[in-house]
């Protein structure tokens, strides 16, 4: 890991009503790597993703993208720079079709949307890109379905598909496999593996098989503090991690 990190957070903290959700966390993400972020419930993993994505303002610390300070940038500005995220609880446009969900994800990278006349359904350039995404995530048959009417597993696929539109440099994936069952996990694991080459990925995941299969490095959060960050093989041996998380005595 000698290269300059794509995304680098230095000493970021967040308090809610005086209680630290995250305290002085420093984390970096490099080109072509998948960093798995693990930790018990309430450890501050999602808060950390919110801070990196710019949804939650940090109380302290800085975030840099390719060496450029983005601490003060709002989430939409970060997203267009190339820091994309998915949500733990599917955050789709439930009342729009799958096709329009994907269109929106694609459209944001095609310049401004102050275009008032041409129908998006006749916009072949946009549709083609949306359909490419649908094909990669096996959603072609669901294009006319309302996102809210999808089965849970398909919602998770759409969730990740939308995060991937626009070919972001950084992907922050908040439990993409939550609740999709072993079959789906295997499939998604394979997909994420293929994405590593093109995107630097921060993956929050509880499924340890997936973590050890995919991760180049593992970071462990506990009580809002980063207690370990390093080689996946070492994390199994680390005493503190075992106590905090893996439940071994």
């Amino acid at each position: 890991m000698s290269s300059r990190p794509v995304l680098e957070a230095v000493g970021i903290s967040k308090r809610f009503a005086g209680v630290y959700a995250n305290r002085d966390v420093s984390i970096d993400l490099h080109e072509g790597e998948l960093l798995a972020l693990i930790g018990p419930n309430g450890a501050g993993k999602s808060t950390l993703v919110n801070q990196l994505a710019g949804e939650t303002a940090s109380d302290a610390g800085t975030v840099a993208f390719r060496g450029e300070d983005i601490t003060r940038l709002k989430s939409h500005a970060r997203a267009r720079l190339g820091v994309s995220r998915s949500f733990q609880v599917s955050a789709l446009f439930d009342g729009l079709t799958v096709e329009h969900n994907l269109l929106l994800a694609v459209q944001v990278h095609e310049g401004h949307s102050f275009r008032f006349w041409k129908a998006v359904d006749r916009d072949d350039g946009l549709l083609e890109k949306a359909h490419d995404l649908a094909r990669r995530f096996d959603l072609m048959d669901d294009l006319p379905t309302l996102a809210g009417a999808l089965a849970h597993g398909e919602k998770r696929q759409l969730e990740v598909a939308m995060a991937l539109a626009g070919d972001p440099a950084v992907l922050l994936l908040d439990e993409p496999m939550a609740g999709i069952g072993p079959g789906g996990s295997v499939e998604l694991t394979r997909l994420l593996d293929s994405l590593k080459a093109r995107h630097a990925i921060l993956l929050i995941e509880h499924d340890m098989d997936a973590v050890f299969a995919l991760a180049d490095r593992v970071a462990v959060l506990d009580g809002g503090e980063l207690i370990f960050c390093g080689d996946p093989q070492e994390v199994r041996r680390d005493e503190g991690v075992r106590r905090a998380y893996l439940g071994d005595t």
Partner: protein
Amino acid sequence: MADRLQLIRIVIVVVAGVGLAVLPWVAEAVGEGFVTYQVTRMLIYALAAVSLDLLVGYGGMVSLGHAAFFGLGAYVTAILSFHAGDGSNVIEWPFVIAGSNQALWLWVLSMLVSAVAALGIGAVCLRTTGIHFIMITLAFAQMLFFFFVSLEQYGGDDGLGFYGRNALPGLDVDNDTQFYYVCLVLLVVFVFIAHRLVRSRFGIVIRGARQNERRMHALGFPVFRYKLTMFVIAAAGAGLAGALMANQSEFVSPGLLHWTLSGQLLVMVILGGMGSLFGPVLGAFVFLVLEDVLVAYTEYWMVYFGPFLVLMVLFSRGGFWGFIKREGSE
């Protein structure tokens, strides 16, 4: 099933369109010419309701101040027409605005003034959402209402009358039938523009923002400026409707900006069907026809209208238009 409903929708729109196109002739033929005048009023409110639905139905911005832009548009046209009547200027410093009777100038100016007001008001209001948005739009509208109440030189509380409708080249809009067609054409044009708008890139951004603003931000959309643009477009539509309203009755009063009118416009939208373009037109007609009919029986017509509205909201979330819209469509 879906195709059949679509067929029903097309049939309804065609029948309504043809019906509206021939209405003045029929009214004349059966000796009820005044119906044309009354339906003109419905067309104008329909235009205002469609513009409100762009905000509420498509943008999820429930405004209780839309009448402010309606009334503002009406006053702009009325004040300039009033000055045209006695040949005076509206203002002389820092520049001269002369009174005018030219529809093409006045109606565009009404839209512009409403749009500019919406730019300022929206920039403040859209920093809030939900119940706060409702309250703050209401507050701004009431401020404008009291501004016109206190505007003594233009009649204040009593309102402002002017003589003769605005001049349109080649037409005689003082003739109720011709004015009817002008309003009908403007409504059709506005609905068509709105139809294109909500299906465009801009439109889908607005609809996405209504569904899930957080995700819009995460995707990279600066949502605020899109919502503000929609707020301005809707206000311009209301401003045009106001200009027509002033012409219809050759009179304006602060009542055109009152929050009860904002409420009525909302009722029309909900009754007809939010998030559709023909729904609000339908809603405006049903509302005003029912009002006319019920008022003939009792001054307290709202006593009967209220329960009807409650039933509609309970049993059809999509209003009248919702009855003929397929489940699971956008």
